[in-house]
């Protein structure tokens, strides 16, 4: 049960392999990776800068996890989120969940990602050849939220 924020780029398989080995008695391992797209509306993205309010992000993600754990029975979870400069095709976020059966992991992982998008205090700025632009939160990101949690 771990939440990691790091500047350093990571290889997802390193985390997933260890997580799977640590949870050898689980019947299901779910993983999700969010990556930097090399293009945004036909503009080449050179890099993105991710700003983080670390203390609040920890508090908010833990709150989300506590809510989800009351609803979905899981064995373990891991969240890795990068901050600082991230290049196209690199990983931004990794979520790994272990449970006895697949549905708990799927639902927990999806719910965690949905809530993270609207509550965790990260901000992305895309850097292009001709300038930079802060990324706005998408209305669609709020549509998926199950506010009944």
């Amino acid at each position, binding site marked *: 049960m771990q939440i990691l924020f790091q500047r350093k780029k990571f290889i997802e398989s390193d985390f997933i392999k260890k997580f799977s080995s640590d949870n050898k008695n689980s019947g299901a391992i779910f993983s999700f990776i*969010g990556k930097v797209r090399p293009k945004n509306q036909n503009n080449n993205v050179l890099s993105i800068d*991710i*700003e983080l*309010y670390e*203390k*609040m*992000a920890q*508090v*908010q993600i833990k709150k989300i996890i506590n809510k989800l754990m009351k609803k979905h029975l899981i064995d373990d979870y891991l969240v890795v*989120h990068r901050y600082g400069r991230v290049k196209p095709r690199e990983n*931004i*976020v990794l979520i790994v969940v272990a449970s006895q059966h697949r549905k708990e992991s799927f639902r927990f992982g999806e719910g965690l*990602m949905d809530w*993270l*998008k*609207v*509550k*965790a*205090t*990260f*901000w*992305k*700025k895309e850097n292009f050849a001709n300038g930079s632009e*802060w*990324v*706005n*939160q998408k209305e669609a990101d709020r549509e998926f939220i199950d506010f009944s949690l």
Partner: protein
Amino acid sequence: MKILYFAKLKQLIGKSEETICIGQKKKKVSQVINELKKRNDIYNFAFKETNSLQYAVNCEYVDLDFFVTDSDELAIFPPVSGG
């Protein structure tokens, strides 16, 4: 009270944090912002659309009517965009 600014707001104001004194009385977040807006055109512009910003006190989301004191940490920022 410590105030933290993030992302575009930090860029507009030109600093990531500052400390202000609001005295012994509690004040609403909206009152704190109104006082900041009076400082100069930069603050006035940065807080032009207060409804499009988000507010947190001691790491919990709050609205503009929430009361704060000098011992609180107020964070102000645009909607988050991580993940």
